[in-house]
């Protein structure tokens, strides 16, 4: 008995030591790939002719098509595509692999707002020396700024979500509205008219949909977040400008002119399909998404730019979109870079992403390609929806930043803003609570908050 107990102690002690060793190992994750000289074309050619295996984590459906185009161009490179989950699960696995020091892919899909968190952990390879600098002009400026806030280039943009207004022409017409509301003031009046005439809500504000609200902030010129790439963050979600946006929505919600149902679930899909909502303020990926959700209402929808705060203005915000980044731990950085670049820059590949997977393109060449922009959509009564969003894309404010801990920012949004919006409370007051939570989290995590 006595003997077995002492063995147990030794064993426990042993595992504790093992734990120490394990945590010791997670300290460094390899530098961010700076301080390397410019990569020459010869380096790239040599790397692309060497048999290489790459792993690519992404949840873009049918991306195998574009990967096949890449493999055809570079027959020596063999790419394995893995889908480890969409959104949060993807990032959790990515972070675990980075911390464990093995198992991370060479190339990974990263949404724009999550890039800073991986820059913070020095997990991404700076692609500027690999030639990413030279292609910056091939992308709309604001999208490029998302992957390259300063000299470094952390990823290649894949798709974006400039915001617009999708609405049911028939329902608005019943309420006597023949032109899409040009200003937010007109939008509020239209909301009133639509509700009275048809009982529909002019649109729904997803109670916990931080992306949508942040898109509205973006349009209004609010700069809620800032990050210097090192240890200093700027948090200003409760500025006067932000509160003005919040008050606008509070009024509409409290007057029961806008619903606050949680979005992207069955109830909400049905609401879009059966006219509970007469519109959807959404992003450029919205039109195709809606087509699949509300099939029965084909031909009744139209697309328009977002209403404006000032008459005659023409600005928008962005909601969603992704990029492909190369992990700093990749053993084949050149091939990995070429993969990330090829998929999102090669004309044929980029074009197929836009026309087959319906990812809204950030590439200027696709945005100007008649095969893309002149496409008429039956669902929208023959409207050239791509052209409209291509125009909107040029009106997105170029300078919008994120915090290096957006997972927390969104979850805290749910807790503070989401509960208030759902309860039809004072959204501006919830902004204060959100600000407090974000500042205290940032300080606890050791950031300098400005």
């Amino acid at each position: 008995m006595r003997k077995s107990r002492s063995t147990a102690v030794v064993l426990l002690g042993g595992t504790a030591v093992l734990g120490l060793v394990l945590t010791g190992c997670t300290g460094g994750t390899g530098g961010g790939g700076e301080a390397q000289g410019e990569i020459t074309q010869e380096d790239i050619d040599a790397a692309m002719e060497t048999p290489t295996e790459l792993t690519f984590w992404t949840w873009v459906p049918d991306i195998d098509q574009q990967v096949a185009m890449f493999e055809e161009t570079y027959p020596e490179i063999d790419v394995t595509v893995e889908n480890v989950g969409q959104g949060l699960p993807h990032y959790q696995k990515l972070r675990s692999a980075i911390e464990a020091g093995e198992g991370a892919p060479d190339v990974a899909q990263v949404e724009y707002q999550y890039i800073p968190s991986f820059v913070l952990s020095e997990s991404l390879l700076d692609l500027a020396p690999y030639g990413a600098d030279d292609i910056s002009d091939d992308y709309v400026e604001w999208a490029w700024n998302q992957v390259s806030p300063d000299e470094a280039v952390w990823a290649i943009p894949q798709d974006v979500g400039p915001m617009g207004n999708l609405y049911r022409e028939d329902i608005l017409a019943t309420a006597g509205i023949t032109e899409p509301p040009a200003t937010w003031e007109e939008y509020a009046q239209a909301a009133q008219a639509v509700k009275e005439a048809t009982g529909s809500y002019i649109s729904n504000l997803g109670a916990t949909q931080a992306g949508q609200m942040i898109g509205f902030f973006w349009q209004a010129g609010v700069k809620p977040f800032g990050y210097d790439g090192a240890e200093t963050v700027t948090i200003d979600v409760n500025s006067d400008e932000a509160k003005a946006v919040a008050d606008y929505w509070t009024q509409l919600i409290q007057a029961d002119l806008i619903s606050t149902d949680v979005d992207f679930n069955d109830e909400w899909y049905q609401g879009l399909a059966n006219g509970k909502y007469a519109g959807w303020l959404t992003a450029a990926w919205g039109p195709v998404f809606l087509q699949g959700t509300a099939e029965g209402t084909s031909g009744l929808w139209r697309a328009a730019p977002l209403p404006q705060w000032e008459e005659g203005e023409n600005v928008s915000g962005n909601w969603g979109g992704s990029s492909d980044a190369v992990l700093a731990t990749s053993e084949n950085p050149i091939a990995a870079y070429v993969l990330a670049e090829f998929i999102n820059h090669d004309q044929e590949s980029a074009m197929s992403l836009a026309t087959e997977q319906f990812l809204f393109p950030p590439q200027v060449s696709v945005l100007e390609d008649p095969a893309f922009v002149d496409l008429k959509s039956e669902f929208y009564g023959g409207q050239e929806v791509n052209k409209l969003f291509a125009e909107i894309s040029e009106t997105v404010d170029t300078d919008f930043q994120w915090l290096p801990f957006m997972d927390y920012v969104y979850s805290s949004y749910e807790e503070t803003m989401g509960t208030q919006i759902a309860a039809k409370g004072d959204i501006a007051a919830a902004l204060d609570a959100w600000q407090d939570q974000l500042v205290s989290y940032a300080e606890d995590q050791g950031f300098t908050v400005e």
Partner: protein
Amino acid sequence: MSHSHSATVADAPPRRAAPMPPRRRNAATRRQHRAAYLFILPFFAVFLTMLVAPLVYAGYLSFFESRLIGGEQFAGLANYTRAFADPNFWGGLGRVALFLVIQVPIMLGLALFLALALDTGRARGSRTIRLLIFMPYAVPAVIATLMWGYLYGPDFGPLAQIARGIGWGTPDFLSPGSILGSMMNIVTWEFIGYNMIIMYAALRAIPMELYEAAEIEGAGQFRIAWSIKIPSIRPAILLTVIFSIIGSFQLFNEPSLLNAIAPDAITNSFTPNYYAYNLAFINRELNYAAAIAFLLGLLIAVVSYVVQLGEQRRERRDRKGLR
């Protein structure tokens, strides 16, 4: 003590033989011990690597603090003192405590009633009924919660439509005020059959003579249930109570899945377990999450022990009373 016992069994002399010569006996015993250790080795290997090591590692982690800027440093009991002062942790505990005192008695009461009803053998097609009641347990929690999410839906959910149809207005099952009740309903539906099966199996093991005796004495079904059946299956009931306590404290699936349908009603700290998960994977405060998980584990152990102890005391008292 297990020494001599196993040796006598294995040697199995027809009658108690004279003690064997010490040397031979030792060799045999040693051989048997080696075999015994070999047999339990796989278990211990898995037990140590999959259970003890992670547990120790989590315990070790809970004494550190890791920041996004500045890295990891020893924090002593700071995570634990923080937990004691954390209203989110206590709020979650309060919620599962409420869940425990309301949901568990309802579920176990119903399960016991159903088990007794089936045991009387009066219900027709009792085998089918048993299977039907047990079936929800076989439905994966993910599907169960999604199904209930549909049933609870305010616009197109059948419950809401029926309520509107008879003029009761639209009940909101997914609001912050009612979500806990809705969750109790889901968990009851899921686990009633499981608990019923445990009780039913215990009921089937009661010797028939007891019933015959009772019937001769003129006892009715209710009297038999109350005075014979329930006391006889008390250990089984205790088992279901303890399982339910553990299950309540560890509630995770339901809040996690309902969060997709009602994110405004399910806060990040809705239950302690869900809170620990969010701390670790969203707030990226792994160390604090480990401390929360440890405190929760400790609490579950204490509560389960107290319940068991109370039952043992009561049993002892009863036995004395009989004597």
